[in-house]
Every structure is written in structure tokens, then in C-alpha cells.
């Protein structure tokens, strides 16, 4: 009697383990499916023309995504200009002022900003930039992506700096170094690895964002890299071409997806590796 109850429990235990492993395995399958699909369909499109030419009109073959690649680069640069300095300063503020009502409110704001749906940010950038200027533009796209980058940079900077032991600050202050110099020349360099990986992850996050660009950067078939005109971007290209009825454009979408996916995954892996390799020993 006791024996059979024990056997049942052991069986349930083994069965549960199998179920857990199986379901876990299923959960990671999509990564391989996605990689397989995108690579299989996309890699055939990748050639020098593809990366350097502009998209061809409907019906013609041999277009490229050069404007999307450069457009994405432009948007990332604009977003970084907005988000990186402010983000790092805010991160320093939050790591230096851990208690206090105001720091709490500030931290809460950052966390809320992090969770705002990207399409809402797109609308904000529309209201703040597109409407007053009267046209879609790279700047508005940069603003939208910048707002999305900001919380990531703040949080990773704060996390990194919090890990730096206080004795480092004390060593510097005891040498008669002023507080601003201590932060900028001792603490910040000590946390550089974490801050840089935070930036990589932030760029990875915004590189693939489409929704905020739908009505800010808007997309363009031309190589227009002007700040105040619509600009193309990789995720926009994927969206527009994937949802179009033309098979030639589907091929472009596969190729663009491949480039985008490789870029984003590479950044994520680089950040992961960088976190480990560049870590400063205390």
C-alpha cells in the first residue's frame, strides 16, 4: 500500500520533469523556426546590389535596401544624441540619490516610461514634432526612438553604478578630488562596461521598432537623408513590403528581415559577451 503510493509519487515526479523539459523545449523552438525561415528566404536576396541600391519600382526586379539601412543608421544616431547624455546623467542622479521622495518619483517615471507602448510614443512624437513642422521627418522619428531609448540607458547606468563599491568614491574624495571629478573621472570610467552594454541593448531595442516610425519617419523610397523629410528604415521596409501584394517586394522584405534580425541578434550577443569580458574587477 505504502509502496504503491510511493511508486505513484515517483512516477508523477518523473512525468512532471519530462513535461517541464518538453514544454521548455517547445518554448524555445520559435527562435529556430524564425532563424530558419528568415535565413532560408532572406539569404538569397543578400548581395552587394541589395545592400547598396535603392528599392526598384513595382514590377522591376533587383531593388535594394540601401536607403533603409542608412535611414535606420540616421535614426539611431539622432535617438542616441537625445537619449545618451540625458540618460547617463539621470542614471548617475538615481545612483547617487538612492533615497528621498524626489528620487523615488524620478525612478518611478523611468519605469513607467519603459512600459509605454511604442505606438503611443509614436503619437507623441507626431504631436510634438510632425504637427508643428508640418511634415514627417527623420527628426520626429529620432525623437520617438530617443524617448524609447532613454529609460533603457537610465536603468542600465543606474544598475551599473550601484554595483560600484563606495570605497572607490571614498578613495578619490580622500585624495582631495572634487565630487564632480570623482563621479566623472573615477566612478563613470569604472562603470563604463555596463554603460556601454546598456547602450548596445538600447540600440538593439530601437533598431527593430516599427510602430513609432509609422507616422514620424514614415518611410521613403528615396535616399533622402535630410533631417526634415521622411526617411526610410529597416523595420518600416519589412512592414511595408511584407504586407504588400507584390511577390518581388516580399523578397525584399525577406532580405531586409534577415539584415535586421542579424543586426539585432548580433548586438544582443555582443552586449552579453561584453558584459562578461569588459567587467571591471574591484
Amino acid at each position, binding site marked *: 500500500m505504502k509502496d504503491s503510493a510511493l511508486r505513484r509519487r515517483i512516477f508523477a515526479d518523473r512525468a512532471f520533469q519530462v513535461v517541464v523539459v518538453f514544454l521548455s523545449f517547445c518554448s524555445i523552438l520559435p527562435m529556430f523556426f524564425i532563424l530558419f525561415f528568415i535565413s532560408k528566404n532572406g539569404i538569397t536576396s543578400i548581395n552587394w546590389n541589395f545592400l547598396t541600391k535603392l528599392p526598384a519600382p513595382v514590377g522591376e526586379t533587383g531593388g535594394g535596401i540601401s536607403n533603409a539601412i542608412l535611414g535606420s543608421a540616421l535614426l539611431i544616431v539622432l535617438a542616441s544624441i537625445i537619449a545618451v547624455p540625458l540618460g547617463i546623467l539621470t542614471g548617475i542622479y538615481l545612483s547617487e540619490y538612492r533615497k528621498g521622495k524626489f528620487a523615488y518619483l524620478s525612478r518611478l517615471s523611468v519605469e513607467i516610461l519603459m512600459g509605454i507602448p511604442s505606438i503611443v510614443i509614436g503619437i507623441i512624437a507626431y504631436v510634438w514634432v510632425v504637427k508643428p513642422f508640418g511634415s514627417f521627418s527623420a527628426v520626429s522619428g529620432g525623437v520617438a526612438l530617443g524617448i524609447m531609448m532613454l529609460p533603457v540607458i537610465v536603468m542600465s547606468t543606474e544598475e551599473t553604478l550601484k554595483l560600484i*563599491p563606495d*570605497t*572607490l568614491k*571614498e*578613495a*578619490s*574624495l*580622500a*585624495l*582631495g*578630488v*572634487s565630487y564632480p*571629478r*570623482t563621479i566623472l*573621472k*573615477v566612478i563613470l*570610467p*569604472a562603470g*563604463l562596461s555596463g554603460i556601454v552594454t546598456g547602450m548596445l541593448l538600447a540600440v538593439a531595442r530601437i533598431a527593430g521598432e516599427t510602430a513609432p516610425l509609422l507616422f514620424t519617419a514614415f518611410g521613403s523610397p528615396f535616399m533622402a537623408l535630410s533631417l526634415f523629410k521622411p526617411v526610410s528604415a529597416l523595420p518600416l521596409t519589412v512592414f511595408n513590403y511584407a504586407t504588400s501584394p507584390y511577390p518581388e517586394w516580399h523578397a525584399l522584405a525577406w532580405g531586409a528581415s534577415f539584415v535586421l534580425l542579424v543586426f539585432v541578434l548580433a548586438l544582443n550577443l555582443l552586449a552579453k559577451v561584453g558584459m562578461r569580458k569588459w567587467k*571591471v*574587477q*574591484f
Partner: protein
Amino acid sequence: MEGPVLKIEHFSAGFDSNQVLKDINLSIFRNKITAVMGPSGCGKTTLIRCINRMHELIANARVSGKILLDNEDVFDIDPIIVRRKIGMVFQRPNPFPTMSIYDNVIAGYNLNGIRVAKVDRDRIVEESLKKAALWDEVKDVLHRKGTFLSGGQQQRLCIARALAMDPEIILLDEPTSALDPKSTTHIEELVVHLKNTVTIIQVTHNIPQAARISDYTAFIYLGELVEFGPTEKLFTVPKDKRTEEYLTGKFG
């Protein structure tokens, strides 16, 4: 004997509603080693952190009274200047992890943006490392990061870093408590040598160490200066009963 280099007069300190130090009156003599000892929590670390104005970095820190360095109250001078005249070495060695050994020693200049000719920089680094008895061990690897050294070597690096600023006084906050016995001996020998160059105030809870190396000893208990005097006298014929009890291990 000339006048004391540091005079602490009716000095009290604390933070929030805690009163950590009560009415301390103490003189520190030039080129001598003064040990500050007492049980944990007695306020000895707070005392030296007040001397180089590090105590006020804690929120809600309060001080009253005077600490006179060469007859000028440190609380009237810019704290940054105070800290350049009074160096500090901490309990756990804390070399700057992103800097080489060379840059660590000269950090006080680099970080403050004080430009020094290369020739002088090399000289300062070499002299400071020699005074810290570390030169021979690191002279060929000055470009390597400071964190690769052993604990005892790192602590000597921190001493060299403090010495490079040519301070009048160096405060040592239990500098050997995180080190092994061999390194501890090295540092103790080093400190005794150093008193020819700088005045030393060393906080320690290691009673034998205080007896070994110091010229004067101050015994602090529950925030009060219980007794102060030449080490030999204090250890052999303590005037206060509490001093005697501490020395014989009745509490600590």
C-alpha cells in the same frame, strides 16, 4: 618638542540623533605615530574621518568644536584642500581599478587636473613607491593594473598614492585588518619608517599592534577620550580603570 601639528578641541560629532563623539580634546605631535584604539563602535573611525572631513559626506552628519591643523581650523578651509593636506588609507585596499599602478600613484594629480612635467611625475611615482616599500616589486610592471597585486601590495600602493600628495598627516583606518600576518608585518615596518616623513594617526582595534608601533596612544570608549599619552606609559601604567580593563581584555 615643538607644538602639535593637529589640535582637537572640544570636538563632538554624530549623525541624525546619534552622538558618536563627545568633547574630544587631543593633540597630535609631528612625525610621531599616534594610535587611536578602542572597542568596535567607540567612535575611533568617526574621529579620523572628521579630521579629513570625510565624515560630513554622510547625510545628516553633525560636528561641533575645532580641529586645528597648524593652527587653522579645518572646518574653515575648503574640504578639498584639507584632504590634500591630510591623506587617508582605508581598511580594505582600494586602488582605482581602471588605472595602472603608475597612474594610481599619481592619481591625486591626474584626477585634480594638476599638470606635472613627465620628469617630475616619474620622480614622484618612484619616490612614493620607494617610501611605501613597493618600488622594487613593481618597477618593471608600472603599466599593469593595480588590481593584479596581492592584498598587501595593494595596500602599499594605496599608501604610495597618499604619500604622493606630500601630505602633512596620513590617517590609517585599520590598514592591516584585511591582510594576512606577513603583509601586516610589512606594513607595520613601513609605517614606522614613514614617521620620519609624515605624521601618522592609526586607528586600530589590534592592541598589540598599537603597542608595537605607536609613540602615543589615545583610548576612546563610548565616544569619549578616556586616556591619551605616550604609548609605553599608557600600556604599563594606565591612569584610567577603563583603559586597564580594555588592555587586559575585559571588553573589546
